[in-house]
């Protein structure tokens, strides 16, 4: 299993004005995200259970949310660099 993204590094250099640099230690949010994830998953399990009881065909919200969380974990390593000659944006997820 992958570790969640630990650091978000965002640099924006506008054509005129001060460059903006955000270094966000995402690892500090891990405990909060874990608690939130558990809460949301508990809610979706309940929702899916109700949907099954009601006979609905689509009752996959738990898997949907779990996969969405997995996609968030896989963000680690993503790099986006955009430079239009005036403004430069550099975002790295580590």
């Amino acid at each position, binding site marked *: 299993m992958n570790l969640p993204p630990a650091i978000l590094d965002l640099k924006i250099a506008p054509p005129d004005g001060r460059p903006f640099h955000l270094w966000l230690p995402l690892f500090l949010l891990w405990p909060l995200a874990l608690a939130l994830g558990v809460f949301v998953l508990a809610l979706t399990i309940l929702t899916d259970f109700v949907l099954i009881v009601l006979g609905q065909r689509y009752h996959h919200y738990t898997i949907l949310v779990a996969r969405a969380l997995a*996609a968030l974990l*896989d963000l680690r390593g993503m790099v986006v660099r955009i430079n239009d000659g005036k403004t430069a944006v550099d975002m790295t997820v580590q």
Partner: protein
Amino acid sequence: MSEDRSRILNMLAEGKITAEEAERLLDALDARGAANSSAGPAIKGDATPLIAALPKFLYVKVMAENGDNVDVKIPIALVRSGLKLTSLIPPQAMDQINDSMSEHGMSVDFSNLKPEDIDDLVEALREMEVNVDSANGDKVRVYTA
């Protein structure tokens, strides 16, 4: 350190290649080393070198004639997760997505994307390479490494 590896690092230090290019070359070197070391009659024991040799990132580079540059590095694991997520979107939302895509000229029906096809799709992606050189000088490169 191998001779090839030190040559790549020297080229990087001399500014002949960019850090991205050096990374690609080093990855390719690692992949070649792993392939050579695993060229035995059968795969036995630890398969880690083989797994390490697989591309891990999808690169999208756009170099426009007017100087605009876009450089995106996407983990292949994220592509896989995204595709798996797509196959689970509720039908009502999927219809809206398909309609919206169709309005923008992309008639892709994501509801046809089955979870069992995703692994094959991602595997095929690993060998994909797209090079576009337009007449006005714009260049688009999509590859995995």
